[in-house]
């Protein structure tokens, strides 16, 4: 297949350019720290290509998994926006939403930042080449949106290519605020497939965004996701992730506190069973004065599952007044489950407060006995303790629909 046959009409120039060299970019290996625990053999089976339009229709059982939120909804199926499923009528004043394909064709310069790779791995390149559709949204200066904007990314492995790419671009104007929820689900039990999502977020001064990722793809699939955030002065980014499904669920955050007084609060839960590998790769760059960052992740790992928390705090020279904290608490439910937790701290400024800590534990046997002595059966007592551990990651989530969506997926009892 020649490169030209892969070009999507109207694609951004960067998408076209990367096609010339995409064949020569090698897949990451175990030697790449950021991909060390990835299932490389499975990754090699992913075949990315241009999105096929129209995308297949969404099976009812997948549709039923979509959390119902009040607000605008953009549905992306195999990398292509499904305008019939999307709900974009009656957008609130100050919010504009377009498809990425439209913007790439008409105002490509708006996407220059999105298509500039921060890492040169094959999957980033694949997304630049083939992630030619998706959602682009802009929140106007001073606009405060109440209802969450919902991006539903559905993956139904196709025949020609089993993996699709999509892009999400979010720009918040000065002193605006919004909530964006990205739900990643799909179908195709037993069929290897994957999805590769790239989210680029820019926050102007004093803007505030809450961004929630809900990942519950079928166990046959791979989910690769990169969220890049650039923050101006006084802005605030709250990123929450619930990494639950997929055989390999990889979530990468690269947050750049590029101006003074920016704050970022990242937290999440990864909950693995079977042979799942759930991987969080976090880097926060403190590039200016008085930045505040927190990373707080919890892992629950059962069976043979593997969790990865690779958390970076990168304090650049002169970024005085930095206050950075990182924590990763893990609950191992099986002797065979594995957690790999690693802080990466690079501190090149003087007046800096930085702390990090990780814990790995098992269910508290004394608490189990105490509950059982009160008549609660062993299985239910275990369930209660696991839920209690996982629930702490839901505390900051204000949307009840999302809390119950996550709880349901953890096999939660009525709480």
């Amino acid at each position, binding site marked *: 297949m020649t490169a030209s046959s892969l070009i999507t009409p109207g694609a951004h120039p960067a998408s076209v350019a990367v096609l010339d060299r995409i064949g020569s970019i090698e897949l990451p290996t175990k030697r790449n720290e950021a991909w060390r625990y990835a299932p490389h053999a499975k990754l090699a089976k992913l075949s990315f290509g241009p999105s096929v339009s129209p995308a297949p229709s969404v099976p009812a059982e997948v549709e039923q998994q979509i959390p119902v939120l009040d607000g605008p909804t953009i549905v992306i199926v195999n990398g292509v926006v499904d305008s019939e499923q999307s709900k974009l009528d009656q957008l609130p004043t100050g919010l504009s939403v377009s498809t990425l394909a439209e913007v790439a064709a008409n105002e490509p310069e708006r996407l220059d930042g999105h298509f500039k790779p921060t890492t040169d791995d094959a999957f980033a390149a694949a997304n630049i080449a083939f992630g030619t559709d998706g959602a682009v949204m802009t929140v106007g200066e001073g606009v405060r949106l109440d209802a969450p904007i919902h991006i539903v990314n559905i993956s139904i492995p196709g025949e020609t290519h089993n993996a699709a790419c999509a892009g999400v671009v979010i720009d918040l104007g000065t002193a605006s605020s919004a909530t964006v929820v990205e739900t990643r689900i799909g179908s195709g039990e037993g069929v290897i497939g994957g999805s590769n999502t790239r989210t680029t977020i820019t926050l102007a001064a004093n803007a505030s965004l809450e961004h929630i990722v809900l990942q519950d793809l079928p166990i046959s699939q791979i989910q690769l996701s990169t969220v890049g955030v650039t923050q101006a002065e006084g802005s605030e980014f709250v990123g929450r992730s619930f990494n639950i499904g997929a055989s390999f669920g990889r979530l990468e955050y690269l947050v750049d506190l590029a101006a003074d007084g920016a704050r970022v609060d990242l937290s999440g839960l990864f909950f693995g069973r079977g042979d799942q590998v759930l991987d969080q790769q976090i880097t926060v760059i403190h590039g200016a004065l008085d930045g505040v960052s927190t990373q707080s992740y919890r892992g629950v790992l059962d069976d043979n599952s593997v969790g990865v928390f690779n958390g970076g705090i990168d304090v650049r020279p002169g970024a005085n007044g930095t206050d950075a904290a990182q924590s990763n608490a893990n609950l191992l439910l099986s002797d065979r489950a594995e957690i790999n937790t690693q802080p990466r701290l690079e501190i090149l400024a003087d007046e800096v407060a930085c702390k990090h800590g990780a814990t790995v534990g098992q269910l508290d046997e004394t608490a189990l006995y105490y509950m059982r*002595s009160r008549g609660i059966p062993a299985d239910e007592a275990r369930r209660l303790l696991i839920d209690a551990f996982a629930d702490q990651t839901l505390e900051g989530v204000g949307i009840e629909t999302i809390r119950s969506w996550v709880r349901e997926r953890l096999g939660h009892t009525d709480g």
Partner: protein
Amino acid sequence: MLQVENLTASIGGTQILKGLDLSVGTGEVHAIMGPNGSGKSTFAHALAGRDGYEIGGTITLDGQDLLDMEPEARAAAGLFLGFQYPVEIPGVNNMYFLRTALNSVRKTRGEDEIGARDFLAVANKAMELVEMKQDFLHRAVNAGFSGGEKKRNEILQMAIMQPRLAVLDETDSGLDIDALRVIASGVNSLRGPDRSMIVITHYQRLLDYIEPDFVHVLVDGKIVKSGDRTLAMHLEVNGYADFIDEENDAAGRAMSGAKS
């Protein structure tokens, strides 16, 4: 109601209970007193079914063999253990915990589960017994509770579970006199002709408030003396020294007997 015969318990190769016999009739309150390390708590946990002990002998409750049962089945059979050190369970709401416990037991017994509203009425009544405020129910189980609050929470659970046999393990430890009064009055109000209790304590003090029908002295894994309340008073004056010496003498005689 409860029959304990020749109960032995070892942990990690160390024998702690060495042939304990005890019979508790319906409606009776028995006190078990003993010095530190005599096996009081081990006895309590052997009754409740804690893992990790090597157990011998028999325990029957209302004719059922307890030793074959999991802790949750023992609770459903009507056993309740008030812990010396109640366990903190962060993230589990106290009310939800109590309702789950009660409904688990009811389910095992083939009874209907209790809904949230009816349960609240049950809980409110129980809370009055131990002078607890409503906010107790909305906190995580024992998490951040003071020593006295934890012990009151144990008695609250007992009031909700309405056990056939309540075993209270050093419920008085770490309590000031006011908290002790509240707890004792809660316990006393739960006494009844169909409910038996075993009150385990190191000190006689608790027995001024909860008057036992029988007192047993546990030394080195065995009951060495049984009597009525006056036995507790004797211990208050003389301590455990009499019994410990007797034990040592008896052990000494056994040793010399073996040698000859």
